[in-house]
């Protein structure tokens, strides 16, 4: 089972990469662009057929290693 973890900076943590990208988009003429947030995605393959178990295990991985709670929030998506 494949699980995707979407990692984003927590609110209030500066995101220079995002704000620079937003500026670049506006200078290309995309005037409607507001905030751009750059995060990352981590794909984890888990050997189980149980969606809840996969989600629970990956959540534990996020807490122990994959994300830093000082800087980042995460969302888990089970891709099946």
């Amino acid at each position, binding site marked *: 089972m494949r699980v995707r973890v979407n990692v984003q900076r927590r609110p209030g*943590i500066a995101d220079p990469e995002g704000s620079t990208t937003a500026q670049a988009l506006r200078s290309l003429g995309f005037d409607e662009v507001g905030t751009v947030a750059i995060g990352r995605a981590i794909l984890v393959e888990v050997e189980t057929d149980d969606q809840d178990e996969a989600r629970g295990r990956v959540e534990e991985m996020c807490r122990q290693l*994959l994300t830093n709670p000082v800087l980042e929030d995460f969302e888990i998506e089970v891709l099946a």
Partner: protein
Amino acid sequence: MFPGTNCEHDVAYALQEQGATAELVWHTSEDLSGFDGVVLPGGFAHGDYLRTGAIARFSPIMEEVARMAAGGRPVLGICNGFQILCEAGMLSGALMKNRDRSFLCRPVHLRVESTNSILTREARVGQVIQIPLNSYEGNYVAPAAGDQVILRYCGADGEVDDESNPNGSVDAIAGMANAAGNVAGLMPHPERAIESVLGSDDGALLIGSFVASLQPA
């Protein structure tokens, strides 16, 4: 030392110059008995994979480092070592990419904010020193109440303002210590400024403080 550590010889040399006996210990070691203190030197432990310090904190040696810290022994993290101590929760906060997204390698001025730490005990509050900064992820965030700010980035006369803050660190924080003062970390490199021929010997004050904090185990 972790795979990717690259400042260990400079640190060992600096410690020896200050009168300590230093030995390099590989990260898979599980025994630090006989040592009076430990320094986590700079570099790119485990390739900085995932986040700086994120993998290193699970190296076998880190349990021993935590044990020494809990036992009141001096534990110092320099640059990547500071990042590792933060990831391991031995110091609060985290270090993220520099505000202007550039790697910084230049001397910086620091103001001593507290002398209640193994790194600053021989300095005086308000003292301004100059040592090199050499990092991409030195932007410090989120100090917790209880931990102490020991060093701030400043101008040549000690003024702390946005202009003298090289990487966007919150409150211009360059170095932190725990409440007891026995665990300390900083982004700049004191071991690279211990002789005037290197441009500054101010780092000797910090390394000397660490050595003075060592008590026989």
